[in-house]
Each structure stands twice: as structure tokens, then as C-alpha cells.
């Protein structure tokens, strides 16, 4: 902010506090700014005043346009500060003069300013000729760069104009000036970014040509990774023709390029260990650099690699261990968490010792990262739970903020849940923690958890003391949850009942009404007024059962109920049970990188879990058994149509469920009774068993409707289904948001949907194909040869077969080197009925693009091996 408003003369005696801007004041500077009106302009004076103005601006002062105009008539005939239309013309004309100046800097700056203050296309069109000239101005790189960078900004507001400069920009890409090439490349890429083919051509030509500046090389690496990513998204084979280029960049002389290339390689989709090795090697060199920035960059990247390829990083372990004592705590934390990910069982104890020393002098945010890493380590090596649990309980006792403590408690809870042996000691650690816990939220969470887990332990009585201490010592919120926890022990452990009743009765005199109410309720439910009886199932359900309605829905219903008070009591059965929001189908942005120091990689299993939960929560489908596979969403509508629908195919042993995710994109409509009419006449083996319509589909709030089919058990039946969306449409008044009473029935044709053989296959990679192949044995090996007919290329044939089978390519064998005449591809997966399948494909191309293929299948089940051949034979 501005300095205090004490006016002081620039007093040089006051050395310590001296600042040329001391005592500067907005009003005074504005007064001074009158020099701009002086008929005899004093340039030096003006520039001093301008510096003062800039100082104020930089300190966060704001100036309004009114100020300028009224106070001073500033810049009178030469300038204006806010580009209102007629002022722009004045500024422009003077800047235009500068654009023809002989001095490069004037021209460059005039271009930058002009482009910045213009918002409308007409002015741009006037100066377009200058800009185009400037771009190809080979003698003055400053001017060319200014025009190109301005082009990058203008692309956001006036794309159609900038796109006309393609030829000039293309020429500038060949410029000999290093930075011009960089700026031209950035602009050209942005002009063409939606044209995949053009970007791919650009990358192809430049990776072979000369790129002069390290910055340009870095962006080229990024564009190359983008091309690689998109090509593998298209054909599933992850064709990687540009890998050689990336690897070559690892030998570049500039560190930023080396690092950019190494990072790009580690982030390749399904990167193989062979591809990773050279990148890891250069990063390892960075680890022992004297520059903190290099060490940080390397350890951060290796940390990410360790999440997916821990084995590849183990070579760097020695360098990592020395980084634990790094001055820079970010580097040390990243090193530790990497080690925790790559460490083996025997090194755990040693690591824990090192970390204990380290924990005391880092900030909470780093500690949280370490705690998360320790939790995953413990889940990986359950046998080591003792030392890890001890570590967690020790740090739990030390000082720390809420987030840190919560991370520790969460970790202990997860360990208790997943490692049965750790339960008793973990619960005791938590009990000790709540004896001295300043966070109400954590206390109540732990009490709740204790109530669920404690009664199931060998000696539940030892927890009672800790719980009842809460009733005596804590605030009302904690007391109330302690009462609930006591009641849970009472309900589950009959031997403890009499003692629990005594404790609960004491709570009847609590000063807080919630505590008293809970005590009263539980006493009467558990029969505390007399005989000791076996606890009712209903009571247990009440105590332990979770609500069977989504909390969001309950919240809305309760709000509505409170808004319209009525005589009727609130009925929990009236709360809708459908899940309205739909986090499952969120599109994952491709190439989105994890954020934060310890961001976890996206877990593919969680979607399956979520789907499984969703399906089993629907009564009609609950007896279908275990969900084998859910496909990725298949779009059934074009982009930007009235209704957006995609479908997820859920495969069960004897059933298939289609989950239609529908979104209504018309604000003026409310859809009700939404269902999909499926015609399965082209799918003989399927017969519809049930469907679940969607009650209502308001604007922009996605909903799901389901249709279930029966199919022969364990048979990979295939077929084609045509779909029709059926619904009642009601007009919505856009101002009030109310829907009209009457609706009209309507239908909407969707695209067809196919169930294919690949739907019955789950991709599952193996790290060492040869070992897996040997261990599965030749018992059920089936070998046959097929002619695939004329194909565009070998790569195309390989990718077609891979997508037909829907299996995971192993060891990077999906990549076909260019111009090769033969290729072997290794695939692995799990077929319906959880039979492991390995496939070895040998391709050969011959004469006029005729492709022949030898298919060897090994699996744990004879019929599966045959089924794979059937798929290929009929595909």
C-alpha cells in the first residue's frame, strides 16, 4: 500500500528510512502530473512523474479514469489511459507513427501496446499489414518477437484475424533468431491446435529440422508428447514413433531441454521400463547437482514415476537417501516420500529411524505428505504394521495442526480397517489420543469409530474408561458422541450392559439437552429400566445402520419441510433415494497431471468400485452377482445436441446392464419419466429383464436410467442394440424456474450400441510377459494362423486386432517400428470368469499389403483359449 500520508521532504539525513518515494501521496503526484499540460514539454520531468505514478500503481493504488480526465486533462492531446473509442484513435495515431520509427525498440513496443489496447477488429485490420511485415522482419528479431507474442494474445480475442497470418508465422518458424523461432512456434501451434493433422505435421517436420533456442526445444517436446498422446488415444496401440526424438533431447546441452524431455518420457501413456531407463538416468544425475532447482525438479519427477513404476526408481535410492538431509525441505520431503514408495520390506525400519529425526523440523504440510506415504507403505507391507503404527502414534502425540492430526488419525483408521492384526493396538492409540485432543471434530470421529469397532474386540471393557472420561471432561458435542458410543457398547456386549446403564443414567443429569436426550433415548431403547434383555435387531439397526438415503437428498427434503411447516411429521420414506449428481462419468482431462507434493495417481479401480456400489444399490439388479467389468462411456449422441446421452456397459456373469447417463441441455425443459427403449432384435442371445426409468431430468443435472438384459451364463454373447430415448417433456418458465403442469410425450433417436467380445475382457498388464507365459504353461495353448487381407499398414492391422480383443499390450509391443515387415505383439488380460489370458501375435506383411497373423493363446481354461480364437475368427 501507499506510504503513510505524512508529508516529509526527501531528507537524506534519515539514512535508514530513506526512500525516494517516502511520503509520496496520490494527490500531490497528480498535481505534479500537470507538467504534461505544459506547452514546453520537459521530457525528463515527465518521465520522473510517470515513475512516481507507476510506483503508486505498483503499490496497489487505483486510479479512476475520472481522476485523470478531471484533475489534469492528463495527456491532453497525446494520450489516454482507458481506451474509449475516440481516445484510442488519438493514441493509435501516435503509436502508428512509432511503428514506422527507425528505432527497433519503438517499433517493438508500439506493436505490443497497440495490440494490447485494441479490442475491436477494425483497428486491427488497419494495422494488420504492419504486423504481418513485422513477423517476417528477419533483421529485427525484437520487432518480430513483439508481433508474434502480441499475436498469441490477440488469438484469444480476434482469432479469425490472427489465423490469416499463418504463412508469415510459418516463415518465422524458420527464423535464425532463436527466440523468434520460439515465439513463432508457440503461435503457430496455437493457431493450429485444433487441427490434429497439422500439429502432427508441424512436429514431424521440426523434430527433423533445427531448433535453435532451448525454449523452442521445450515447447516442441510438449507438442510432441501431445501428438504421441493423441495418436495413442485414437488407435489404442500407443504408436510411439517420436520416442527417438525425445530420447535424443536427453543429450541436449541445455538442462531445461534435458529435463523437459525426461519428464515427457516419464509421462508417456503406458511407458515401458526400457523407455524409462534413459530418462531416469539423466534425472539421477540431476539429483546430485549443486543447484537446488535441478535437484527439486528431478526428485519431484522421480517421485511421480515411483507411484507407477517403483522398480524403475530404485536405482536412485542411494542418491535419494542423501537428499533426506537436504537444506531445502521440499526436496527432502519429496525424497522421503519417494523412498517410502520404492523401499522394500527390509528397509522399512531403517527408513523410519531416519524419518523420525526429520519430522521434527519440517512444516505441517510436508508432514501430511509423509504420513500419507507411510500409510500406503503400511498397506503394502502389512507385516511391518507394528513399527509403522508406532511411528504414527508417536507423531500423533507431538504438536501439530488440525490437518496434520486428521491425516494421522485417518491413516490409523485405514490401517485398522485393512490390517486386522493392527486393530487392537490402533484403537488404543486412538483412545490415548482423545484423552488429550483439542479438536472436537477428531474426538467425535474417533468416538464414532470406536463405537463401531470397539465392541468387536477381545476385551471391549478396556475402552469404556476412555469413553466415559469424555463425558466427564469434554464439551457438549464430544459428550453427546461419547454417550452414543457407550450405547453401542451396551447394545453389542451383553456382559457390559449393567455397567453401561449406570454410566448412561449419570448422563441424564448433564447440563446439555442433547446429551440428556441421547442418554434417555438409548436407555429406553436398550431396556435400561429393568431386565437385561437381548438387544433387538431394530435397535442395532438404529444404532449402527447408516441412512439408506443420500444425505444430499435428505438435506433438500428437510429444507423443504422446514420451509412449509405442516402438521404431518417428517417422513423419511419420502426422501428420494436416487443419486442425482453423477461424479462417475466426469471426463478426465487427458494428460492432467496430479497436483501437490503427494498427489496420488488416478486409481482405476475406484470407478469400478463406485459402479459396483451404484448397481448393487438398485434392488432390481442386486442379485446379478459380482460386476465383472464396466466399459468406458460410449457416446450415443453427437456433441452439442439437445440431450446428451452416453452409455456404460456393465457386464455380469449372466446379465448385462446398460447405464444411460443423460443430460438435458435445454434450460426451458424439464424431462420426466425418462427411459430408453431398447430394441434387441439384432442381439438374439439377450432378453430384457428389467429397466429403471429416471423420474425427472432437470436442465444440466445429469441423471441415469438403466436397462438390464439376461444372457446365457458365462457366454461372451455379442449383439447390436438400437436405442430410443423416451420421456415426457414439460416447459419450464425461465424466469421462475417452475415447470408447467402438463407434459407431452416425446421420443429421441439415439445411436446404436454394440456389445462386443472385448467387453468381456479386462485389460491387465503383466510386468514380465515371458515369465507369465511360461508359468501359465502350454496345457491349453491354441495356435492358429489367419489371413487379415489387405491392410493399410502393419501398425493398422496390429491396432485393429488389439482393439478387437480389448487386451492390454505388454512391454511396449503395440508399437510397430516404421517400415518393418513383421512384428510380434504381446497381450494380456482377464477373460470373463476370471481366467487369465496371454496372447502372442506374430504379424507378417507381404507383397501388396496382405497381412497374415499367427495367434497363440495360453490361458487357464481351455474354453477361453478357444473363445479367443472364435473372436478373431469372427472379427
Amino acid at each position, binding site marked *: 500500500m501507499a506510504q503513510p500520508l505524512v508529508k516529509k521532504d526527501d531528507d537524506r539525513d534519515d539514512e535508514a528510512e530513506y526512500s*525516494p518515494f517516502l511520503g509520496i501521496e496520490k494527490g500531490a503526484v497528480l498535481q505534479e502530473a500537470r507538467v504534461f499540460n505544459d506547452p514546453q514539454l520537459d521530457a525528463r520531468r515527465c518521465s520522473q512523474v510517470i515513475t512516481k505514478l507507476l510506483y503508486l500503481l505498483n503499490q496497489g493504488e487505483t486510479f479512476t479514469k475520472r481522476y485523470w480526465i478531471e484533475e489534469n486533462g492528463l495527456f491532453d492531446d497525446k494520450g489516454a489511459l482507458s481506451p474509449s473509442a475516440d481516445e484510442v484513435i488519438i493514441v493509435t495515431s501516435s503509436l502508428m507513427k512509432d511503428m514506422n520509427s527507425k528505432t527497433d525498440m519503438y517499433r517493438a513496443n508500439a506493436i505490443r501496446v497497440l495490440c494490447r*489496447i485494441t*479490442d475491436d477488429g477494425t483497428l486491427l485490420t488497419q494495422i494488420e499489414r504492419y504486423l504481418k511485415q513485422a513477423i517476417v522482419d528477419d533483421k529485427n528479431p525484437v520487432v518480430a518477437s513483439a508481433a508474434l507474442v502480441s499475436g498469441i494474445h490477440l488469438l484469444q480475442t480476434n482469432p479469425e484475424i490472427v489465423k490469416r497470418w499463418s504463412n508469415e508465422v510459418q516463415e518465422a518458424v524458420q527464423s535464425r533468431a532463436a527466440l523468434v523461432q520460439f515465439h513463432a512456434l508457440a503461435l503457430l501451434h496455437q493457431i493450429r491446435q485444433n487441427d490434429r493433422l497439422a500439429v502432427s505435421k508441424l512436429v514431424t517436420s521440426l523434430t527433423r529440422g533445427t531448433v535453435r533456442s532451448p525454449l523452442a526445444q521445450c515447447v516442441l517436446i*510438449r507438442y510432441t508428447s501431445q501428438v504421441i498422446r493423441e495418436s495413442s488415444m485414437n488407435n489404442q496401440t500407443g504408436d510411439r514413433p517420436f520416442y527417438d526424438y525425445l530420447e535424443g533431447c536427453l543429450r541436449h546441452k541445455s*538442462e531445461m531441454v534435458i529435463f523437459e524431455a525426461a519428464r515427457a518420457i516419464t509421462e508417456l501413456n503406458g511407458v515401458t521400463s526400457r523407455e524409462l531407463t534413459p530418462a531416469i538416468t539423466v534425472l539421477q544425475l540431476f539429483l546430485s547437482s549443486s543447484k*537446488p532447482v535441478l535437484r527439486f525438479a528431478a526428485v*519431484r519427477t522421480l517421485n511421480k514415476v515411483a507411484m507407477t513404476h517403483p522398480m524403475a526408481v530404485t536405482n536412485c535410492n542411494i542418491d535419494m537417501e542423501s537428499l533426506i538431509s537436504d537444506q531445502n525441505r521440499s526436496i527432502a520431503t519429496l525424497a522421503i516420500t519417494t523412498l517410502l514408495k520404492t523401499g522394500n520390506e527390509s528397509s522399512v525400519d531403517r527408513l523410519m529411524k531416519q524419518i523420525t529425526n526429520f519430522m521434527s523440523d519440517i512444516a505441517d504440510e510436508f508432514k501430511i505428505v509423509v504420513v500419507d506415504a507411510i500409510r500406503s507403505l503400511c498397506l503394502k507391507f502389512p507385516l511391518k504394521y507394528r513399527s509403522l503404527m508406532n511411528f504414527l502414534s508417536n507423531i500423533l502425540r507431538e504438536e501439530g495442526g488440525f490437518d496434520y492430526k486428521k491425516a494421522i488419525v485417518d491413516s490409523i483408521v485405514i490401517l485398522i480397517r485393512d490390517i486386522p492384526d493392527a486393530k487392537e493396538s490402533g484403537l488404543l492409540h486412538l483412545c490415548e489420543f482423545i484423552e488429550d485432543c483439542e479438536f472436537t471434530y477428531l474426538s467425535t470421529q474417533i468416538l464414532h469409530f470406536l463405537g463401531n469397532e470397539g465392541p468387536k474386540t477381545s476385551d471391549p471393557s478396556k475402552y469404556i474408561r476412555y469413553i466415559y472420561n469424555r463425558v466427564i471432561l469434554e464439551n457438549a458435542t464430544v459428550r453427546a458422541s461419547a454417550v452414543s458410543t457407550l450405547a453401542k457398547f451396551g447394545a453389542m456386549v451383553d456382559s457390559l450392559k449393567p455397567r453401561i446403564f449406570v454410566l448412561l443414567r449419570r448422563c441424564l443429569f448433564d447440563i446439555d439437552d442433547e446429551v440428556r436426550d441421547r442418554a434417555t433415548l438409548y436407555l429406553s431403547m436398550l431396556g435400561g429400566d429393568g431386565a437385561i434383555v437381548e438387544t433387538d435387531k431394530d435397535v442395532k439397526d438404529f444404532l449402527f445402520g447408516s441412512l439408506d438415503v443420500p444425505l444430499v437428498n435428505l438435506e433438500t427434503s428437510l429444507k423443504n419441510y422446514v420451509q412449509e411447516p405442516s402438521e404431518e411429521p417428517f417422513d423419511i420414506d419420502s426422501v428420494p433415494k436416487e443419486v442425482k449428481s453423477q461424479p462417475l462419468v466426469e471426463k478426465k482431462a487427458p494428460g492432467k497431471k496430479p497436483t501437490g507434493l503427494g498427489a496420488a495417481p488416478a486409481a482405476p479401480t475406484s470407478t469400478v468400485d463406485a459402479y459396483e456400489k451404484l448397481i448393487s444399490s438398485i434392488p432390481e439388479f442386486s442379485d446379478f452377482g459380482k460386476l465383472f467389468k464396466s466399459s468406458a462411456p460410449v457416446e450415443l449422441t453427437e456433441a452439442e445436441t439437445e440431450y446428451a446421452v452416453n452409455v456404460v456397459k456393465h457386464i455380469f456373469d449372466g446379465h448385462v446392464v446398460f447405464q444411460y447417463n443423460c443430460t438435458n441441455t435445454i434450460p426451458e425443459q424439464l424431462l420426466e419419466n425418462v427411459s430408453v427403449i431398447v430394441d434387441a432384435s439384432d442381439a438374439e442371445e439377450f432378453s430384457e429383464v428389467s429397466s429403471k426409468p429416471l423420474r425427472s431430468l432437470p436442465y444440466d443435472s445429469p441423471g441415469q436410467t438403466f436397462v438390464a438384459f439376461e444372457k446365457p451364463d458365462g457366454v461372451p454373447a455379442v449383439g447390436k442394440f438400437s436405442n430410443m430415448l423416451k420421456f415426457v417433456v414439460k416447459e419450464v418458465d425461465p424466469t421462475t424456474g417452475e415447470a408447467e403442469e402438463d407434459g407431452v410425450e416425446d421420443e429421441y433417436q439415439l445411436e446404436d450400441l454394440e456389445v462386443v467380445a472385448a467387453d468381456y475382457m479386462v485389460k491387465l498388464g503383466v510386468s514380465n510377459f515371458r515369465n507369465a507365459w511360461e508359468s501359465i504353461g502350454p496345457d491349453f495353448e491354441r495356435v492358429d494362423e489367419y489371413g487379415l487381407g489387405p491392410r493399410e499398414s502393419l501398425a493398422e492391422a496390429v491396432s485393429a486386432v488389439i482393439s478387437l480383443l480389448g487386451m492390454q499390450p505388454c512391454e511396449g509391443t503395440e508399437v510397430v517400428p516404421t517400415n518393418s515387415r513383421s512384428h510380434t505383439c504381446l497381450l494380456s488380460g482377464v477373460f470373463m470368469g476370471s481366467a487369465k489370458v496371454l496372447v502372442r501375435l506374430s504379424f507378417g506383411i507381404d507383397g501388396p499389403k496382405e497381412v497374415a497373423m499367427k495367434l497363440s493363446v495360453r490361458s487357464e481354461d481351455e474354453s477361453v483359449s478357444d473363445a479367443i480364437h472364435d473372436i478373431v475368427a469372427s472379427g
Partner: protein
Amino acid sequence: MAWSFYWNNHDTCPTIKSILVLDSEGKRIAVKYYSDDWPTNSAKSAFEKSVFTKTQKTNARSEAEIAMFDNNIVVYKFIQDLHFFVTGGDDENEIIMATVLQGFVDAVSLLLRNNVDKMEALENLDLILLCLDEIVDGGMVLETDGSIIAGKVSSHSMDDASPLAEQTISQALATAREHLTRSLLR
């Protein structure tokens, strides 16, 4: 202004989010934001405060240091009582940011004739501000070579010092006006 939203659209270009020069108490000397992540002056001040407190205890004098928090990467270097920072998003190439920082520090050292301290910086604030404008434009790296940046900046100030008769009024005002306009429009 609309066009400064641009980095949401292309994550493929190296992008600098801000360059900060603070004094040894964390007060602003000169700052420049190229991102809309900090829309208000108070958001900017809060960011500067957290950058300053999280880095002040480290020793970033001989080599540039680095820190990461709240999805920002901060590369920084301290000279005398001045703290120089370059910040970017958490998926930015750290080494590019370090190169920008080095270029900036080199240019400032050249322009201040190696007397890099707070007083010298304030007395030559115009040079520092021009430096910020010549190194990065709207997040795009313009130049990373310290001597070239310093050269560009001093070509401005040389004109300022030359006699009035030798330049047109428009020329004399052009550079200053341009920088003023640009700052006002952010």
C-alpha cells in the same frame, strides 16, 4: 481484460505467473502479475506475504532456491536486502523458471551497476519496471538473456537522457506512456 485469461487455453506453452521483487521485510518494491489467479490487490498482497514467509528462512544467495506450495512453484534468489521471485503453475518446468529468474537478476545487476540493494532499486524503479516488461509479456517469456534485457532497457533510458531537441515529443513520451497504459489496463 479478456485476453489475459489466455492461459486457461494452452497449457503447452511455458508460462510465468508473476515476478516479484520484495524487500527484506516482505514489502513490495516492484511486482508484476501475468495471471488472473490473484484478481485483487489484497489477494496479491496475501500471496506475496505467504511467498515471503515461506522462503525467508532459506539461504538463496549463491544458488537460486525453489519451493512449492498451494499449486505454485516459486523460484527465488536473494541479493542484499532484495528478494527476487519468479512463480508459475505446479506443472511448469522448474528449470525454465530458474532461467527467467537468472535473466532478470542478471539484467537488474547490470542496470544497477552491481549495487543491487533496496535503495538503488527504488531510485531506479523505472529501470526495474522496464525490465519486468522486457522479460515476460503476458506470461510469455520474451527474453532470458540478462545482457540483452538490460540492453533493451537502457536504450529506453538513454533516450530519456538525451537532449530534448534530438527527439520528437511523441518519441520521448512513447515508452513511458506505453508502460503506464499497460499497467493501468491490467
